[in-house]
């Protein structure tokens, strides 16, 4: 009898006649999972997991397994194009890379001369490992305006982590926390940043306790010891209630609080403003459950909070994060083995250094759009999107003339999509680098063909906080596609910053690795590198904050004119803050729950992923659906004061009857249809982007908590799937 072993590379090669296998790591999301890429005749034939990978241990998600369908998609852009008809006309002409980059360079330099470097905005979407190169380019060019998702995704974790304890603490899954509290995060199917679902799953399989905070019954919530089904947007109140129990019952780590915390007394006074009964009324969670969760979390050691983006897309963005940091801190789990660790990256020229933030002249720093309004964001080089749209449309505080989006589809992903569309239609010159002509790229003047992860050499995960860096190895070249790094390296030479870049981007990789004393060609042969792992570093060095303490009371926020203590604000739109509006729009709408296969706006073109879920769905409690005559699978109109879109009803008993849950980033890729259905199901048509609706420090939009009304659409055709008749 043959012996079967996992991932048998030799037998795999022999059975299918592959010529080669490349060890690399995926980036269909933020990346991280080790993969084996099998090729034959220079073509990718199979993607499999690499069991030796420290991230995910060879398990993959649906997206990773469909990577070849992205790389070889027939609609993929394989050469640069320039638009020859009006914006959105879909009339493109093939041009050379030289012509494309020369045109972009000429425009950039022209605007810089006439309107200042700040009139050129660079943008990227979610973390795709190009961010350091984009910042480097922008800073050297002299523009303080890089428009990212950082105001409402990961940026808040980084910035609040840094001001509180010097870095972003990561759950130490390798040492199996005995209790995990998953807070607004569905790691097992989400597009997580550091560790992946497997690391959590294995931890739970070893018997760790699980607390889940989520308005929806996810499978994680179903498996939890305690599921806290909160009213959307009340996370800060819930955290304050739990802190209240932990402090009131003296379940906190006294040594940590006594020796390593700044601002304990005022913090306790603030927490006491939120007795559990008050919190129960705010959050819809019974007081006993809040107390039970607080006790379980505080008394099971070590413990970690698996936090994610959901708490960041609210008006309480920064304070939600700070309160979760407080929970990690006062329970003694910060930097504790098996708790929540401040990992160190290997000695490299890190994202900050590579990003050349010190090269942006001070007189340009102060011009950062929205920097005086959203001052926490501003200090971390993060810009609120509306500031950019306003500058395009009104010319205030100064005109923005050019935008260059690199792996970003703001028409789909930014709040108040109609305003975004208007700004992109208006901006004088726009370039985009992407895989496809997306709804955003349709409005561009030039579109550049971006490489997928299969087509690049790179040092992956070097921006993350688990301390690993992993070599991503180029497997194939497809058309004229280029990685964002190579493209920017080339463009940099054309705008006169060549001395800070390299003849070939491989030398840029060498530069990153320089402090380690190795070059890319050597790193390429390694499986990975990890920074030295050590725990409880504060005991010898304190924390990297102004007070060297864990700042429950933030001296920096105080200095920037904010409340130094975290607090709870009602969501911008809610039954309580806007009762009149609630009468007209009687459901709380949560958005952005993840589903397998998709990464924000991506992958709707890939057959193996689209068939997993062909249409967007709106989760509705069966009782609510019945009231509106809505059946499972019906197309439903969802309306907010900003607009109206349609998604299909998914009757789901795991959501509160007062809440409905929509999906985000849905468009219907079809290069022959103008707009490609960008506003048919795009939930951001409904979201608000006014400055008042944003977190005052971070500028995060309240895209996950708004009010809506629903009705069965009289038109039941699935337009986006082409059966519109």
């Amino acid at each position, binding site marked *: 009898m*043959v012996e079967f072993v*996992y991932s*048998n590379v030799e*037998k795999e090669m022999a059975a299918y006649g592959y010529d080669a296998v490349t060890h690399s790591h995926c980036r269909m999301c933020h990346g991280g999972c080790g993969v084996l890429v099998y090729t034959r005749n220079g073509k990718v034939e*199979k993607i499999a997991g690499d069991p030796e990978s420290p991230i995910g241990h060879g398990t993959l998600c649906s997206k990773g397994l469909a990577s070849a369908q992205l790389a070889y998609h027939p609609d993929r852009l394989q050469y640069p194009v320039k638009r020859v008809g009006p914006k959105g006309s879909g009339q493109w002409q093939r041009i050379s890379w030289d012509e494309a980059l020369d045109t972009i360079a000429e425009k950039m330099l022209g605007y810089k001369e006439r309107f200042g470097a700040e009139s050129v905005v660079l943008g990227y979407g979610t973390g795709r490992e190009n961010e350091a190169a984009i910042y480097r380019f922008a800073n050297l060019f002299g523009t303080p305006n890089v428009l990212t998702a950082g105001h409402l995704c990961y940026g808040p974790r980084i910035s609040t982590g840094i001001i509180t304890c010097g870095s972003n603490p990561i759950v130490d899954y390798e040492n199996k926390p005995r209790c995990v509290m998953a807070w607004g995060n569905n790691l*097992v199917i989400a597009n997580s940043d550091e560790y992946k679902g497997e690391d959590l799953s294995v931890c739970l399989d070893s018997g760790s306790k699980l607390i889940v905070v989520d308005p929806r*019954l996810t499978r994680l919530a*179903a498996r939890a010891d305690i599921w806290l089904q909160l009213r959307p947007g009340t996370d800060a109140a819930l955290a304050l209630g739990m802190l209240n129990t932990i402090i009131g019952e003296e379940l906190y780590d006294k040594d940590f609080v006594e020796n390593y915390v700044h601002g304990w007394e005022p913090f306790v006074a603030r927490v006491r403003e939120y007795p559990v009964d008050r919190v129960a009324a705010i959050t819809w969670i019974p007081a006993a459950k809040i107390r039970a969760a607080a006790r379980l979390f505080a008394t099971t050691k070590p413990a970690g909070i698996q936090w994610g983006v959901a708490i960041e897309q609210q008006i309480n963005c920064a304070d939600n994060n700070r309160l979760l940091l407080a929970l990690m801190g006062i329970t003694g789990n910060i930097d504790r083995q098996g708790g929540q660790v401040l990992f160190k990256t290997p000695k490299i020229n890190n994202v900050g250094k590579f990003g050349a933030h010190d090269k942006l002249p001070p007189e340009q720093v102060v011009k950062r759009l929205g920097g005086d309004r959203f001052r926490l964001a501003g200090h971390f080089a993060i810009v609120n999107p509306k500031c950019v749209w306003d500058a395009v449309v009104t010319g205030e505080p100064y005109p923005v003339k050019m935008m260059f989006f690199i792996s970003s589809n703001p028409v789909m992903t930014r709040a108040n999509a109609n305003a975004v569309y208007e700004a992109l239609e208006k901006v004088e010159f726009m370039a985009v680098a992407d895989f496809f002509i997306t709804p955003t790229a349709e409005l561009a003047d030039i579109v550049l063909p971006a490489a997928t992860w299969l087509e690049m050499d790179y040092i992956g995960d070097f921006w993350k906080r688990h301390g690993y860096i992993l070599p991503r190895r180029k497997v194939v070249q497809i058309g004229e596609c280029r990685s964002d790094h190579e493209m920017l390296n080339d463009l940099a030479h054309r705008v006169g910053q060549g001395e800070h870049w390299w003849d070939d981007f491989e030398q840029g990789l060498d530069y990153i690795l320089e402090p380690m004393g190795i070059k890319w060609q050597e790193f390429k042969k390694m499986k990975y590198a990890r920074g030295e792992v050590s725990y409880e570093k504060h005991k010898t060095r304190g924390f990297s904050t102004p007070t060297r303490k864990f700042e429950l009371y933030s001296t920096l926020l105080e200095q920037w004119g904010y409340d130094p203590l975290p607090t709870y604000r009602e969501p911008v739109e809610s039954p309580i803050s806007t009762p009149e509006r609630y009468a007209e729009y009687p459901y709380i709408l949560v958005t952005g729950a993840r589903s397998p296969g998709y990464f924000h706006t991506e992958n709707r073109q890939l057959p193996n992923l689209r068939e997993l879920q062909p249409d967007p769905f709106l989760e509705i409690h069966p009782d609510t659906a019945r009231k509106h005559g809505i059946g499972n699978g019906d197309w439903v109109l969802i309306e907010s004061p900003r607009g109206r879109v349609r998604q299909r009803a998914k009757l789901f*008993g795991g959501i509160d009857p007062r809440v409905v849950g929509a999906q985000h980033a849905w468009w219907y890729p079809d290069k022959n249809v103008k707009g490609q259905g960008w506003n048919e199901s795009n939930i951001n048509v409904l979201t608000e982007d006014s400055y008042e609706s944003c977190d005052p420090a971070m500028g995060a939009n309240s895209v996950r908590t708004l009010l809506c009304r629903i009705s069965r659409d009289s038109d039941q055709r699935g337009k986006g799937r082409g059966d519109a008749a």
Partner: protein
Amino acid sequence: MKRLAVIVDHEACWGCLACEVACKQENNADVGIKFIDVLEEPVRERNGKPHFSFNVNLCRHAECDGAPCVAVCPTDAIELREDGIVVMNIDDCVGCDLCIPECPFAAIVFNHQRSVTQKCNLCSHRVDRGLIPACADNICLAHCIYFGDPEEIRPRIEAMRRVRDRM
């Protein structure tokens, strides 16, 4: 002789659908044709708490008692191998569709594009070359897709369940 099947520990499944895509990548089934199907069960009460789980459905092979689909096929397109793998050869399938109601697990699907029935063949083309079926080859983040002899797998699933349920 060792008997073979792929067995999923449903209680451990997270519903990530990676197994479906791994099967697609391997077997290139037409759009809409799934040999392995992750089904979301409706929400119900369990131990006084709302609960739901996933059910991952595929042909049971060695675990299917008597493999009733085999006998009903008029063209002998379905073969029960000695090792318990039940292979459907679509070249011999005439699309009569008689096997579909015979299967107690709804593991056979009708492919309208080709007018044949199809099901999971336990990646017999891989197994015969000493390779683990694509869905079971370490892609599952829950490590809950087992390949091998059901008699050896069942106790392992039971042991995992005891730890997971903290018993």
